[in-house]
Structures are given as C-alpha cells and as structure tokens.
C-alpha cells in the first residue's frame, strides 16, 4: 500500500488556488524531497498532507486512510517551522506529555530514550525556554520521532539547524529509512536533502512540475532540477 497518495488535490485561499491538481505518491521506505521556490506551495502541501487543513478538492490518503483518523495520526510525525514543544515545561516533561498523547506504553521511558538519542539527557530537567537554539531543534526532532512514526513529514527541517543538530537529524533519518519508514521532506538545503532522497518532486506555483527518482545529476548539481523543469528566471 502506498504510504502517501495525493490525488488531484487543490487548496484554495478564498478563490486563489495555492495547490492545483497535485498528484503525488510516496511508497513505503522511500524519501521524497519536495523542492520549489518560496511560495510554490511546499508548506501548504505538507500541512495539508499532515492533516492540519483539508484540501478544497481531491483526496489525501496515508497508508490508505484519511490523515485525520486517529489511528493514522499515531503513525505520522511532523516537524514544521516551529519546534512545537512547550517553553514552560522541561525537555523530559515535554516528551513525556507527547508520549502520553500518543498512547505509548511507557511514556517516561520512551522520553528518556529519545533524550539520549538526541544528546539531551543531561538537560532533561531544564526548561525549554533556557535551551540554546540547537538544543531546542534537537528536542523538536525527538518529539517527532518519539512515537516511532511510519511516516515523517518535515518542512524545511535543515533550515537554521546548527551542525550538531544537522548531524543528529541526518543520522536519525537514515536509520528511519533503513527501518522502512517513509519520509516526505520539503527543503531548500538541496545538498543535505538530496543525499537522503530517493525521489524528488518540484513544485511550481502550486503544481507538480516534475516527479521522479533522484538521479546522480541532481546530487552533483542541485540546481539541475530547477534548470531542467522549473521556470527560467
């Protein structure tokens, strides 16, 4: 069964179509890199797939079901522009909270485990508002991976990450792919993303201009896809 099936999706802001007849799929175990200029609709598409808003037309299916179904949501992890953890709570409290929300059998244990995997176990009782930027980002990653989602949706995850956080994220993503998880990632950092990607899709003004497997040319010259399939100038 396809991990993500986006079928004829349109998204409107008033009468303006931010997404036009988007048709995309992602198979389990693949990593789809979503590229495109600012305003092309990458964030809108990811958020619609994640279930934050409904498409105006068309359907989205995650593992064959609607993204808003509770069972489906437990299989999805999302990292957006914000870190989505609470400043007033500690790192451990935050992850335990999300562990509870995702009905993990032992939220505290899972929380501790992921704090270790992201290198935050020593600051587990520190309040998030006291964290450095890199620490906050690593905690965001821990939150998204905590419930071992089968599908990861990441909106420009490498943007504004420090080196340590980039290394952690890349390691975790590789491990996830090796374990058969699916990743859909929008990105400007073509190099980091294209190394991981198995497939690439180019969005241009809300439409899919290109969708296909990642080729060696794309990795060696990240501007290749834009030049070949995007608009000139």
């Amino acid at each position, binding site marked *: 069964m396809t991990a993500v099936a986006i079928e004829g999706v349109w998204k409107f802001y008033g009468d303006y179509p931010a997404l036009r007849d988007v048709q995309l799929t992602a198979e389990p175990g693949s990593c789809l890199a979503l590229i495109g200029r600012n305003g092309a609709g990458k964030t809108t598409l990811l958020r619609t797939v994640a279930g934050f808003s409904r498409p105006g037309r068309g359907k989205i299916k995650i593992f064959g079901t609607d993204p808003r179904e509770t069972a489906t949501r437990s299989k999805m992890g999302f990292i957006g522009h914000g870190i*989505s953890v609470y400043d007033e709570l500690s790192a451990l409290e935050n992850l335990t909270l999300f562990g509870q929300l995702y009905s993990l059998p032992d939220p505290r244990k899972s929380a501790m485990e992921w704090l270790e995997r992201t290198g935050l176990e020593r600051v587990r009782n520190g309040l998030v508002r006291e964290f450095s930027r890199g620490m906050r980002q690593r905690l965001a990653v821990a939150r998204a991976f905590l419930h071992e989602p089968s599908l990861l949706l990441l909106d420009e995850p490498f943007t504004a990450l420090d080196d340590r956080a980039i290394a952690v994220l890349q390691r975790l993503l590789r491990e996830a792919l090796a374990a058969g998880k699916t990743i859909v990632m929008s990105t400007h950092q073509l190099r980091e993303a294209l190394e991981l990607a198995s497939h690439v899709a180019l969005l241009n003004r809300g439409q899919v201009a290109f969708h296909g497997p990642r080729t060696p040319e794309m990795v060696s010259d990240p501007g290749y896809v834009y030049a070949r399939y995007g608009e000139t100038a």
Partner: protein
Amino acid sequence: MSFARQVLVVALKDLRAELRTKEAINASFAFALVVLLLFSFAFDPEAETTREISGGLLWIVFAFAGTLVLNRSFARELPNDCLDALVAAPISGAALFLGKAFANFVLVMAMELVSLPVFCIFNNVGTPVSKQLGPILLVMMLGTWGLTVIGTIFSALTVNIRLREVMLPMLTYPILVPALMGAMLITKGLVLGHPLSGDLVTWLKMLMGFDLIYTAVSLVLVETVLVG
C-alpha cells in the same frame, strides 16, 4: 487512550504550564481585586442598596477577570507552534477542547474563590453569603462553566487573529448575556437571603440548559475550528 484520559492529559498539561508561569492567574487575581476596590468607591458599602446589587457586581468581576485567563487558553499554544503538535496528535478535537475547558474552569474558579471572601469583606455581606454558601458555590460553578465553555471555544476561534485580547471579550459577553443574567439574579437573590426555590430555581435550570447546549455545540464545532 480513552477519551477521559486524553482530556485529563491536556487539562493537567495546561494547569502545570500555568502554575509554573502564573502569568494569567496573577493578572486575573490582581484585576479582580482592583475592580472590587473600584466598586467600593463607586457604591457606598454601608447602604442597603449595595447589598442588593452586590450579587450582580460579583459576576461582573468574575466575567472580566475570567476573560484574562480564557484569553490565554489557546494563545498559550501559539509560541513554537505547539498548536500544530496538539492538532496532529491522535486525540480528538473534542478531548483537546474539553481538557482546556476543564483547566480553565479550575483556574477561573480559583480566582473566584479568592475574590469571594474579599468581596464579602468589602461589601459587608459576609454573613448572608456564609449562610447560603452551598447554593452560592453551585451558582458559581454553573455560571463559571458557561463562561469557560464559551471563552474556550472563542479562544480557539480568535487565536490567530488581530487584536485577540479585544475580540475575545467582545464576542463572548453578548453570547453570555443569558447566563450572566441568570447567575447575577440568582446570586443577588441568595445574598438577599432568599432560599434557592421558585423563581431562582427556574433561573438555575436555565443556566444548566445554557451550559448543556453550548457545551454540546462547542464539542461538535471544535474540529471545524481547529482543522477547517
């Protein structure tokens, strides 16, 4: 996870976060005390008429100070885009709403329970209030639940908009007119020494009806507000 447990997790999260920063609750307490003080200047506490209107005044304090708490309800999810994480989590919108509503209820009731003795002292109504404490607490809970339900759902409705702090009271108070009116009249009657019977009971039933209807409507519509 069962619905009840989801509600509890969300409610405890809100309460823990609020008790750590105490932003909303402190502002609410302070505001309530200041308004009570100002009422003492406006109305002579010795006069018999003040005793009569005191029940109504109390609810003005509760409504205004309560809004400070209710405003924070969904606004606290804005920094760091925490609302995204809550909406994405496998809990129903209804559980999210109810959890927040319960947390708000606890916080607003806390403010009211602190304001009540101060109110009694300032207006010399300590004896009549203590005689009717049970019924007064009942009215407080029913009225506060109405205030909380409307305030919480409208907090979700106004979370992303300009001038949120102004919009929330402006939208909430007209809707709350029947509930506030009922609560004021019952409290006024109780403070004047009337027993909870006859007309007052009818108002109580209206208040309960208001609470039930709007809780149901909010539970149905919250998913639309959160996801659209």
